[in-house]
């Protein structure tokens, strides 16, 4: 087992564009779940529609900037459509509808019926050329220290990705420190009480769902741009649950929680996966017990377990306050 290279690869994964995209998506989910208390179990759908909104626009000859705007609008529209029937009801109805919608949307996108638009299971490729044409770094050049290097192409996506993440941190910070954010938190605590204080709870929840969705849509676009590829099966339900672990791990309802959560999670997720794969190959009894494919699934079992254990034993995550978490919700 080559510990050095596992570690280096882990660090690279942790600072890479995928982590930046996860962090951004988690910022959106944190606004919905952490601050507004909305159980959106289909966050990956916002990423999907954002990415596809962009890719399809470019595919049909539109410029990338228009694609980005359309992607954001489509993600907000999805939030509106999912919120409209559910946000007047108990929290469970949003959860049920979003988890169902995320899978249904993926099925529709990959169906032959939607193929003229989405190109079915094959997805859409090569829509971000104009993004990479702005890249000031020679794409094939290597940047970094020692063996910790990335290509100029990757570096460009990383810089843009993390800049957007920082921008959204700033926006969410500004929102949550404002009276708007106070109403959002009040709704998380008690909807009826907030209603009795003359606040239009439904409208606020819808806004939170739509803004969080738009942020998720942007995250989906960054993933798609990084790969120059959107395929429906890149947006599996597991991403939503990875994002939940990130949000809770970092600290739900904290400004920097999504960033910290994404970085820590990605490092652990990668390292554990690399360890499992290596152990499967090198350690006899592990190899006997697990197939290579199964070794790759262990990390996902741990995602689920992590979600439960964090929620039960450390609901405040890394950055949240213990005192706040101990206050009974209702």
């Amino acid at each position, binding site marked *: 087992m080559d510990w050095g290279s596992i570690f280096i690869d882990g660090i690279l994964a942790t600072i890479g564009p995928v982590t930046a995209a996860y962090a951004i998506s988690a910022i959106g989910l944190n606004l919905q779940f952490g601050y507004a208390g909305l159980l959106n179990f289909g966050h990956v759908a916002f990423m999907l529609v954002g990415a596809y909104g962009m890719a399809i626009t470019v595919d049909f000859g539109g410029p990338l900037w228009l694609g980005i705007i359309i992607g954001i609008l489509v993600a907000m529209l999805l939030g509106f459509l999912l919120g409209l029937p559910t946000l007047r009801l108990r929290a469970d109805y949003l959860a049920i509808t979003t988890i169902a919608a995320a899978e249904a949307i993926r099925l529709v996108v990959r169906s032959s019926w939607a193929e003229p638009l989405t190109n079915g299971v094959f997805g859409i490729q090569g829509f971000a050329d104009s993004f990479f044409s702005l890249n000031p770094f020679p794409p094939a050049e290597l940047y970094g220290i020692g063996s910790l290097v990335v290509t100029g192409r990757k570096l460009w996506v990383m810089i843009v990705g993390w800049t957007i993440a920082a921008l959204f941190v700033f*926006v969410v910070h*500004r*929102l949550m420190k*404002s*009276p*708007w*954010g*106070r*109403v959002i*938190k*009040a709704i*998380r*605590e*008690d909807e*009826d*009480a*907030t*209603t*009795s*204080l*003359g*606040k*239009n*709870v439904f409208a606020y929840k819808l*806004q939170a769902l739509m*803004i969080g969705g738009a942020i998720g849509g942007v995250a989906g676009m960054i993933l798609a741009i990084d790969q120059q590829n959107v395929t429906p099966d890149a947006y599996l339900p597991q991403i939503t649950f990875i994002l939940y672990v990130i949000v809770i791990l970092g600290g739900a309802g904290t400004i920097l929680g999504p960033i910290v959560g994404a970085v820590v999670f990605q490092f652990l997720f990668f390292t554990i996966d690399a360890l499992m794969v290596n152990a499967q190959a090198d350690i006899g009894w592990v190899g006997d017990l697990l197939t290579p494919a199964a070794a790759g699934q262990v990390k996902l079992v741990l995602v689920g377990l992590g979600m439960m254990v964090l929620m039960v034993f450390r609901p405040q995550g890394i950055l949240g306050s213990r*005192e*706040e978490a101990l*206050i*009974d*919700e209702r």
Partner: protein
Amino acid sequence: MSDSHPMADVAPEPGVRKPDPVLVANNLQRSFGGLQAVDIDHLEVQRHTVTSLIGPNGAGKTTLFNLLTGFDTPDFGEWHLNGGPLVGIAAFQVARRGMVRTFQLTRSLARLTVMDNMLVAAKDNKGEGLWGALTGGWHATEQANEDRATELLERFGLEHMANEFAGGLSGGQRKLLEMARALMMNPEVVMLDEPMAGVNPALTQSLLTHITGLRDAGKTVVFVEHDMDVVQEISDWVVVMAEGRVIAEGPPEAIAKNRAVIDAYLGEHHGEAAT
């Protein structure tokens, strides 16, 4: 009560007209399944009074509160606040129009500070809109609201807790906070659902003082209560409900002698023993 009081000439009978009603309900009905929870022909609440709503468990008091404040929708009927119809008006709109309620079980916003609990209730803060929140320019309003909140918290003896999480308050303090928070909205009518429930006797007295204080400050108070002694002490007018209907109303002295009321309460005590 002096003879010059505007309610002095009002007859103590159900559905009676009052000289200056702030709240009027007509033919208000709500049933759950087969149970008629509220069935009120006519009810008026006189402005600037403390009106208490009493009745045995299941009499429909809380349901009536929910209906009047828009938290529940009646099967039938209409009601007005200051002559403005409230049928089909959302609960948050009712609150903005000046009728604010509290809840039987306190609803403090636990993971907000006491001060934030107060500030949430303030009206017309442009920072509560998305655009305003992003662009700023709400700090002056916020400062004014904070000053008013501090004043109210002082009045209710909570100013030293301003920066604590509301979830850390005692039960009695939460009741006080909820009342102070309702006042942040500058309401015309305050609807208190069992403000005295679960509060120790020492605090009860202070709550009662606050309630009469509200009336003296020009508000109309409607509150639900079980304890006849409390009702006698502070009410200007008492409305008695049983099985969804108003069975009696009048000044507290008259109600205390009312046969129907005594029966209803005896019924309640029997009922309570059974459950």
